[in-house]
C-alpha cells in the first residue's frame, strides 16, 4: 500500500485491542504519558460502550512530534494507516487483521498468543474452539513485524497484569522511538502497583526467553511397570496393528486404573473382534477409534469411579495447585454431588437395584431422601470416609446394576459395529464414533444416550444403503448442535426419518 502513503508522514498511530479487565486503558495511559514527556502531542480515545462487560474494546492513540502548529489527529484507526497494533489476546489480533489495521508494509503487531475463549467456543456441545494455528499464521504473515508469545503466562509468572507485559514487548519491538528508561518512567509515574508492573514489563521486554517454559509435547506411550502391564502390552503388540497401539495402551492403562487386569483383558477381547474385521485402508482408523471410544465407555463414570477420583491424593494436590493455595493457607474442598435414587440403585447389586427401581412403593419412599443435592466436604473426615467406602466398592462393581446395563449396551453397540465392518467400513466408523454422544451425568447422560440410540436405530434401517455412513455423520453432527434436539429433529426429517425413529 506504499503508493498511497504520505512520505512526510510523521505521526505514529497505535491501536490496542483488549478485552474488558485486561488493563487496555492503563496501557494506553502509559503510552500517552510517555509520549507527552518525550515532547510528542499525544491523543488517545476509546470505544468502551457495552464492551466493558466482557466484550472487546479498541483504544486508539496518535502521537505527533511537537511542532509550531497543532496537528489534526484522528479519533479512530484507518485501515492501512496503523503503525502499531497491540492485541492482548490471540483472536483480538485476528480481529485487528480482519478490520484491516494490520498492514504488511507498516504495522508492527504485538500480540499475546494465549486464548480467552468466546462464549460460542465454550458453550459448544463438543469441541468449538477456533483454530489458533490459522490465526497465528495470519498474524505472522500479514504484519510487517510480528511479536507474539504467551504474555498472560509471562504476566502470571511476574505476578502482574498482562498490560505491563504488552508494554514491555512494545518497548523491545523498537516500534516507538523511546528508550527503555522512558517506558519504565511512565510506569513509575503512574504510581500504581509499580513493583509488579515493572516486573511484568521486564518479562515482556525479554519476551522470547519465555520459550523455555513452553509445555512439553504429549508423552509417548508409557512403558509397562508391572507384570500385568507387560502381559497386556505383549498382547496388544501381538494382536493389534501398530497404528492402534497408542490408544490401546491408554485404554488398558485406564481400565487397570478403573477396575483390574481382567477388565483390561475384556477390553482387548472386544477390541480384537473389531480389529479382525478392520481391513480397509492402511491406517486402521476403525481399530484406533474403537480403542479410544471403547476405553471411554468401559470406564463410564459411576459413583464408585467418581468417589475414587475425588479421594485420591493426587487430586487433592491438583486442587491446591489450581486454586493457588499457599503452604500456610488451609483449604477445605466441598463437592457438589447429586446422587438421585437412580444412581444409588445403580450402585447396588443388580437384583436389589432393579427391584427398588421397579417397586413404586419403595421408590416413592426412598426418593425424597435423594432429591436434594449434597454438599460433600471431602476434606472433612466424615465425608471422606463415606467417599472412601464407596470407592472401595470397586471389587464388587461387576455385581452392580449399572455394570450390567453398561456392558449390555457396549456389547450391542460393538455387535452392530462388527456387523457394519463386514460390508461398510464407513458406517462402522460412524457407529463407533457415535459413542461420543454419550457424555455427562443425569439428564445430560440421558439425552446423549437417547441420541445414541436414535443413531443405532437409523443404522438398522439404513444398513446396506450407500449413504448410510453420510447419514449417520449428518445426524451425529446435528445431535451436537443444540441440546434441545432441534437440529437433530430437522436432520431426521431431512433424511426422511420420523422424529421418533428410535
Amino acid at each position: 500500500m506504499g503508493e498511497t502513503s504520505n512520505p512526510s508522514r510523521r505521526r505514529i498511530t497505535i491501536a490496542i485491542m483488549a478485552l474488558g479487565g485486561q488493563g487496555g486503558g492503563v496501557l494506553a495511559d502509559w503510552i500517552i504519558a510517555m509520549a507527552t514527556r518525550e515532547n510528542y502531542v499525544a491523543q488517545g480515545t476509546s470505544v468502551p460502550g457495552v464492551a466493558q462487560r466482557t466484550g472487546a474494546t479498541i483504544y486508539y492513540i496518535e502521537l505527533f512530534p511537537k511542532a509550531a502548529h497543532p496537528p489534526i489527529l484522528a479519533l479512530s484507526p484507518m485501515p492501512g494507516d496503523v503503525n502499531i497494533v497491540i492485541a492482548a489476546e490471540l483472536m483480538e489480533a485476528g480481529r485487528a487483521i480482519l478490520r484491516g489495521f494490520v498492514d504488511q508494509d507498516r504495522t508492527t503487531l504485538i500480540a499475546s498468543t494465549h486464548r480467552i475463549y468466546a462464549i460460542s467456543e465454550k458453550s459448544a456441545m463438543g469441541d468449538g474452539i477456533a483454530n489458533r494455528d490459522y490465526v497465528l499464521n495470519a498474524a505472522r504473515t500479514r504484519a510487517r513485524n510480528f511479536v507474539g508469545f504467551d504474555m498472560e503466562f509471562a504476566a502470571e509468572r511476574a505476578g502482574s497484569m498482562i498490560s505491563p507485559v504488552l508494554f514491555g514487548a512494545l518497548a523491545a519491538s523498537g516500534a516507538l522511538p523511546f528508550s527503555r528508561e522512558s517506558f519504565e518512567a511512565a510506569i513509575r509515574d503512574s504510581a500504581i502497583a509499580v513493583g509488579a508492573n515493572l516486573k511484568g514489563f521486564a518479562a515482556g521486554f525479554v519476551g522470547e526467553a519465555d520459550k523455555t517454559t513452553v509445555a512439553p509435547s504429549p508423552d509417548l506411550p508409557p512403558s509397562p511397570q508391572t507384570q500385568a502391564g507387560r502381559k497386556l502390552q505383549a498382547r496388544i503388540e501381538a494382536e493389534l496393528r501398530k497404528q492402534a497401539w497408542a490408544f490401546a495402551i491408554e485404554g488398558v492403562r485406564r481400565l487397570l486404573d478403573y477396575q483390574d487386569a481382567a477388565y483390561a483383558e475384556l477390553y482387548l477381547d472386544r477390541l480384537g473382534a473389531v480389529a479382525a474385521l478392520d481391513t480397509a485402508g492402511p491406517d486402521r482408523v476403525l481399530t484406533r477409534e474403537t480403542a479410544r471410544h471403547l476405553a471411554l465407555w468401559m470406564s463410564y463414570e459411576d459413583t464408585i469411579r467418581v468417589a475414587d477420583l475425588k479421594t485420591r491424593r493426587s487430586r487433592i494436590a491438583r486442587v491446591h495447585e489450581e486454586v493457588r493455595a499457599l503452604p500456610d493457607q488451609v483449604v477445605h474442598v466441598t463437592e457438589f454431588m447429586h446422587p438421585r435414587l437412580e444412581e444409588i440403585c445403580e450402585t447396588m447389586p443388580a437384583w436389589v437395584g432393579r427391584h427398588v427401581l421397579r417397586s413404586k412403593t419403595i421408590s416413592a419412599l426412598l426418593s425424597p431422601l435423594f432429591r436434594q443435592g449434597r454438599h460433600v466436604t471431602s476434606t472433612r473426615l466424615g465425608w471422606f470416609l463415606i467417599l472412601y467406602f464407596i470407592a472401595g466398592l470397586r471389587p464388587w462393581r461387576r455385581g452392580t446394576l449399572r455394570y450390567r446395563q453398561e456392558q449390555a449396551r457396549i456389547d450391542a453397540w460393538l455387535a452392530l459395529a462388527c456387523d457394519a465392518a463386514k460390508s461398510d467400513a464407513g458406517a462402522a466408523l460412524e457407529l463407533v464414533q457415535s459413542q461420543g454422544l454419550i457424555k455427562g451425568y443425569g439428564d445430560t447422560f440421558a439425552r446423549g444416550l437417547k441420541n445414541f440410540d436414535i443413531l443405532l436405530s437409523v443404522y438398522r434401517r439404513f444398513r446396506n444403503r450407500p449413504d448410510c455412513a453420510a447419514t449417520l455423520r449428518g445426524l451425529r453432527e446435528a445431535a451436537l448442535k443444540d441440546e434441545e434436539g432441534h437440529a437433530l429433529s430437522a436432520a431426521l426429517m431431512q433424511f426422511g426419518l420420523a422424529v421418533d425413529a428410535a
Partner: protein
Amino acid sequence: MAERSFKTEVEKLRLGAGADFGGEGILAVTKALLQAGVAYVGGYQGSPISHLMDVFSDADALLRESGVHFETSASEAAAAAMLAASVNYPLRGAVAWKSVVGTNVASDALSNVASGGVKGGALIIVGEDYGEGSSIMQERTHAFAMKSQIWLLDPRPNLTTIVDMVERSFELSEASNTPVMLELRVRTCHLQGHFTARDNVRPSFTIAEALNNPVRDIDRIVLPPASFLHEVEKIEKRWPAAQRFILDAHLNEFLGAASGDVGIIVQGGLYNTLNRALELSGLSDEFGNSKLPIYVLNVTYPLIPEEVQAFCRGKRAVLIVEEGQPEFIEHELNTLINRADGRTRVVGKAVLPRAGEYTGAVLRSGIEKFMKEFSPETPILGAPRREGEDARLNMEVPQRPPGFCTGCPERPIFTAMKMVQRELGAFHVSSDIGCNLFSILPPFNIGNTTMGYGLSSAGASAFKPAPGGKRAIAVMGDGGFWHNGLTSGFGNAVFNQDDNVVIVVDNGYSAATGGQDLLSSAADNQFRSTKNPIEKALRGVGIDWIRPLTRTYDVPRMRDTLKAALTTRTKGPKVIIAQSECMLNKQRRIRPQISKAIKAGKRIVHERFGIDPDTCTGDHSCIRLSGCPSLSVKPSMDPLRTDPVAHVDNSCVGCGLCGEISHAAVLCPSFYRAQIVTNPTRIDRLGSAIRAFLIGFLQGRADRALARRAF
C-alpha cells in the same frame, strides 16, 4: 459510588488561567462549565456520557464551594425540567444525557422549555451514541433540535474547540433566548487531550437569590395564547438572533484553501476524520492544510444562509459530510442555494452511505467518488484495495457479545428462568434496558422485546393471559425501576389489572451505566438519600404479591419462586425482587477491605470454584446454563478425550452459582468449591493437620492398591 472514580482528576478543575489542562473530554467539558459560571447542573448517566455524571458526582464538594448546585436527576425528563430555572432568571444551567434515548425521555420538558424560551443560558450536553460501540437504536438528535428550535452544536473534536464551544453556547443561548444542545460523539467523550485553562467564574446570580426574589412572566408559560406567540417569536426573533450571534462570533470555521471549484461542508465533529481521509487521498496534510476549501459547521442547526451562500458561490459542487439519516443538512443546503438562485451542486448521500458511521475509510471512498465526478482534473490517491477478504479468518475469529460479568448476581436469575422454561415450556419475556438485557444473547437466549428504560412491564401489558393460559414475564433492573418503571410499569399494571410476572433486579446500583447510586442503593451516600426499598414503593402503588429473594444465587429458590409466580391462582401483577449486590461493584468495594484485613493478620476465608478434569466429560452443559467469564474450557489432558473440558480460571470470585447449577440441574459431580483460609488460627491448623494425617493414611492405602493394579 461509581465504578470509575475521578477523585484525583477533579482537582484539575481548580486550574487557573494559563495552566495546561490535560485529561479526558468529559472532564474538559466540566471545566468549561465552571469557566462559564454555571449555576446548576444535572443529568442522567449512560454511555458515552456516564463519566460526565461521575465527574460531577466526584466534584460535588468543589461544585458546592463554587456555588454550583448539582443534581443526579431521576431521569432525563427530570434533568430537562431542571432547565426551568433559566426561564425567569439569569441563571446558567447545564444538563447532560445519552442521546438519542435520553432526548426521547426528556422531550416533553424540552419542548416546553424551548417554546417559552430562556433568560439564562441553558445548555444540554448530549453524548451521541451512534456508530461503533453504540448500544442503542441509530437515530439522530438533530431531529429534536429542528422540531423544537433548539440550537445544535457539533464542535471539532479537540479539547480547545470543545471548551470554547461550551462557553459560547451559553452566550448563544442568552443572545437568542433559546436552549442550546452540544453534541459529543462517543470517541470525543473519551478523548484524552490538552487545552489552556481559564479561571473558573462564580455564578453571577445564584439559585438562592432567585428563590428569594421570584419573578413571574405569564408569557413564558406554555398555554394559549402565549404558546402561539412562542412559535412566532421563535421564527421572528430568536432564530435571527441566533444566526446573527453565530455569524458575528464566527462559531463556524472556514479552513483549508481559500477558494476552489469544489469544496466540502462538514459537521464539526467529523472534521478530524475528514482531514485524515483527505490527507491519505493526497488532498491535505497532517496540519489540515487542505487543497480544498472546507466549511466546518460547529453549529449544525441552524444553518447560516450568508455563510453557506458565500462558501458555495463560484463552486461547481460541494460535498456535504453529514453522518446519519435523514440528511437534514443536505436538504437545507439545497433549499438555501435554490433560494439564492445558486448553481452549486450539493452532493452528500449520493456518494456517501445513507446509513452507518462515517469512518475514515468510508469518507475516503466518498471523497474519491466526489472528486472523480466533479473535479476529475485534481490528482488524487485512490484508496488501497483491500486484499481479498480472508473468509477463513473471518470464520475462525469468534464474536464477543457482551455478557454478564464474572459472578454477576443476574446470571442465576436467567439460569432459573431457563430451567423453568425447560419444565413449563417457553414464555414471552419482555426485557428492559440495562445489564439484564444481556439475557437475550448466548448462552441464555431469553427475551422477546425491549421497549425502553423501565418499560419492560408496560411492554408486557398487552399480554392478558387467557384463563389457565401462560403469563408473560418482564425483567426490570433497579435503574429502570426508578427511572420510569414504578409509574409506567407497576402503576400501569395495578390499574389495568395485569396478571403477569415481573422480576425486578435489585443489585444496589445503576450497574450498566457504571455503578452509580440509586434511591434503593444499600450504600451510604453523603449527598443523596439512599436505602429506600423497592418493595415499599411497590406496596405503595398497590402491589400485594411480592417475593423478595435476598440471594439470587439460590437457583432452586429462584426457580421455585418463579414457578409459583407463573402458576399461582392469585390475580394481579406478581413481582419477584431479586436482590444481590452487583458483583463488579462489590469486588471493588470489598477487595481493599480484604487485603487490609489480611495484612492485619485477620483470619479471612475466600471461596472459589474448580472442576476436576478427570470427571468432566466435555459436554459443557454447565456453561450453557451460566456463561460466566471465569467458567471456561481448556484442552483435555486425557489422551482419549478430544473435546475440551470445562475449567474455572483464577478470576473466579466464588459466587457459588456453579455449585447451585450442578445441583439444581443435576449436572455432574466435577465442580468443587475450595474454601481457602488465609491467616488460619491455631485450631484451623491443628484440625487440618489431624485430617491430613488420617486422610493421608487412607490415601496411602489406596495408592498402594492402585500401584498394584497399575500398567
